[in-house]
């Protein structure tokens, strides 16, 4: 052979020997904006579909209940005339499609119907209770992230490349156990320790700032450890990545390598989970509110279910559902901002 053998030949032999990866064809394009539009349309389409399913489900809820919901709500002793009048006012005697149309129209005009028990507009009930629940959920989420990210990063760095085996085992076991305990049990435990036993913190209502502590912690603890565990796993994986080696080859300070290069990549996976966690956190408020007598939607929905006040239940289920869907969408958008590839990958 000669040392000037054609590069074609050398490449072919190169592939042969090392089994090199096939060449990656990059996307060189000025289509960035176009991609954002496509992402937006697709994501919006999914949101709208899910919303439609949710609205339909909440509408059908009252019709899926076996028997007459009004009779159920007013009790067997209520006079037939009253039941009939109430049915009429709720529009339950109209054809189903007409009812559906009225329901949709009501939603768009902010008319969620009237409570069967209190006769108050449901919209008023919801808007009066929503802020407390929203505050609780958002605070819980923020606290969960504030605990999870530093914990996950530190654990990831400490246990990278098979180091700190014991730390890893202790952390993983603790987080699995704590992550499995449902928030209402954590809540009861907190009530006992900090309310009953130590008497440090209030255990009911939201009148004072310190009353927020226990409910928020009860809500945040589980999601926090689950998220921290995911971030740790991702950190460990990302720290093995080629681009981290590149960052080290650039001799960047450790802080820049961990926080500037590894963390954003570790977070993208964590964020995907964040959507689910945020959703379950929203639902978790129902139980936590009932442990801590928190004046939010969670207590209202339970008392409404028990008193068969279906219009209120319908509306609150809808509000929770919308909350979950919006949370998921928000997380996807943040994800796309952080990692533009997720726009493409998602399909």
């Amino acid at each position: 052979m000669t040392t000037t053998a054609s590069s074609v030949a050398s490449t072919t032999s190169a592939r042969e020997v090392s089994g090199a990866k096939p060449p990656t064809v990059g996307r060189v394009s000025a289509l960035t904006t176009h991609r954002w539009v496509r992402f937006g349309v697709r994501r919006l389409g999914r949101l709208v579909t899910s919303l439609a399913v949710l609205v339909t489900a909440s509408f059908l809820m009252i019709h899926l209940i076996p028997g007459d919901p009004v009779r159920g709500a007013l009790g067997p002793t209520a006079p037939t005339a009253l039941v009939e009048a109430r049915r009429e006012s709720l529009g339950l005697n109209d054809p189903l499609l007409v009812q559906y149309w009225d329901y949709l129209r009501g939603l768009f005009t902010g008319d969620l119907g009237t409570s069967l028990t209190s006769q108050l507009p449901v919209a008023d009930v919801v808007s009066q209770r929503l802020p407390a629940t929203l505050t609780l959920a958002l605070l819980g989420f923020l606290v969960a992230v504030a605990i999870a990210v530093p914990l996950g990063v530190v654990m990831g760095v400490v246990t990278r490349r098979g180091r700190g085996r014991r730390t890893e085992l202790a952390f993983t076991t603790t987080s699995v156990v704590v992550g499995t305990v449902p928030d209402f049990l954590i809540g009861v435990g907190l009530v006992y320790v900090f309310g009953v036993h130590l008497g440090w913190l209030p255990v009911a209502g939201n009148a004072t700032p310190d009353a927020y502590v226990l409910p928020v912690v009860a809500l945040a603890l589980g999601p926090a450890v689950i998220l921290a565990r995911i971030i740790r796993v991702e950190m460990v994986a990302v720290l093995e990545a080629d681009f981290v080696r590149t960052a080290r080859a650039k001799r960047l300070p450790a802080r820049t390598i961990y926080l500037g290069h590894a963390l954003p990549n570790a977070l993208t996976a964590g964020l995907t989970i964040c959507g689910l966690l945020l959703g379950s956190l929203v639902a978790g408020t129902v139980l936590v509110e009932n442990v801590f007598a928190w004046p939010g939607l969670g207590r209202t929905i339970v008392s409404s279910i028990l008193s068969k006040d279906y219009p209120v239940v319908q509306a609150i289920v809808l509000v929770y559902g919308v909350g979950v869907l919006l949370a998921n969408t928000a997380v996807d958008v943040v994800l796309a901002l952080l990692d533009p590839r997720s726009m493409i990958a998602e399909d």
Partner: protein
Amino acid sequence: MARRWLAVVRTPLGLTTGLLVTAVLLLAVVAPILWSDRAEVVDTDQILAAPSGEHWAGTDSLGRDIFFRALVASRLSLELALVATVIGVAAGLLLGAAPLLLGRRLGRLVTAGVNIAVAFPGLLLALFFAVVFGVGATGAVLAIGLAGAPSFARLVHTLVAGVAALDYVSAARVAGVGRFRVLLRHVLPNIAEPLVVNATISAGGALLAFAGLSFLGLGVQAPAYDWGRLLFEGVGMIYVNPAAALAPGLAVLLAGLAFNLFGEVVAKGLGVTTVGGIRLPAATPARSGAERRSEAAKGEHLAMAPSDLVLDVRDLRVSFPGPAGPIRPVRGVTFSVRHGEALGVVGESGSGKSLTALAVARLIEEPGRVEASRMEFRGADLRDGASAHRHLLGTSMAMVFQDPMTSFNPTRRIGGQLAEVAFHHQGMTRKQALARAVERLDAVRVPDPAKRATQYPHEFSGGMRQRAMIGMGVMGTPSLIIADEPTTALDVTVQQQVLDLLQSIRDEDDVALVLISHDVTVVGEVCDRVLVMYAGRIVEDLPADRLDGGARHPYTRALVAAVPDMDTDLDQPLAVVPGRPVDPADVPSGCAFAARCPLADARCRAEDPPLEPAGDGSQVACWHAGEPLGLDGSTGVLVEVRTP
């Protein structure tokens, strides 16, 4: 399957959780038989009593013993949770297998529905169904069961998709076996194991969820009681008798955790075969006499003027801990690089060439160990560690890695990634650094650099990315570029361009280059001098122009002979060096190449040849250096033809 489960149960964690599950099940069976009466006794003298010798957990508002109530409640709690799990698994199975059962179009609709439902948290679904089915134990069981169905459906969907593609399943379908039968007979047995494991986990979840619903007053209604109901009653009097809330709370917690953790442990045990860690296998090769002698030889030669050297490495060793002692993929490598010199390092994968480069760049992390009797870069002793010479290395030693796709951070813009170097090492502001990055991208002939700098790595083609990587290396003023297989991952058409770029940078700025490659042709084309590595040692060190015809070591000659030249018919299978590379965990004594060498004799197998000067500026480590190979004396004898 049974044996594998048994193996899991034998682990400490598996045993603990397994025993817990058994204990909970046993309790659920015997507790109502033994203690129902004691749990029902109303003691009006002892209403809301605190824990005492008589009532271990105190009494409730009717004076009933809470301890026994918590024990007896295990039956109902567990029954309800298990029924709910069965409902969830069954419904999930039907939904998940929908594509199989209903045909593609309807199946897709169901799958889409499942995907929407999965986005909603289970508790919300459970509340929805609880309203529909009514308050009470039956409604709650249905609610929790159906709430769990979507996630099960998703699992089943994935599992079925894997199995349905199997030959005999499609064969059964073609043969006209009914869809439901296919599911029961052919698919289900194949996915039973993951289903059972997940059902175990979700039984724990159902137990806790049920407690939640009962706690809200939506589940079990008085006078019946499960743990959740007891908790509901207990929390109301937590200030009077905390044990009334804590006892059922602890009970449900333990039971739920037991199922959940047992499932997780089994899942992990069955799914993951090996526990992660260092991938290199183990061995403790003792250092042979020849090895030590060759070290001594290395210490003496190379009498070049030190000032002329960019890099001077003596007796470099890299080791990793293995299960049975350290593994040594680099076993005493000595070389140096002069200003502006291009040094090639060739060898098969596993020869230690890349680790040598990483060791020199101080990029080998713990638990890897790097030792050397000398390791100097521009006069700085690298054995002090990389952080001691951070700015020097950051600006003067550039690294180019094999895969430009994975070597850039996918979440950050190219320009920013280049600019970092100048920002951290050259005292520039972010703005200045970015301007420098654009200018450097231009220097490595990236078209439209200002715009390119704002793009992400995935918007670059492979060749452009590698250019940008080289641009990153020349952000500072490098005196050495270490390129580890810089063209291997690239498209054929751009390989030459990248090599040309490296060449021109070298020429313009008098930069030394260490080019690591398994490809003799590439190295021969670009480099002045070539090191041939085998099994963690240098076996030959020769001027690049002597590669063709002037190589003395049998391995070098085999490598050269394996390269197709102009006359080689490229449609024919390519030649390779026969035999397998040496496992760094199991390096034979004597010459490491002996097993593959046609010249090997008894001495080769007994004594390791040292690297010794062979005149004309080259060195070789072989007892029979330069002797003719085979009977006809041509190098072709070594080459065997292998069909790819």
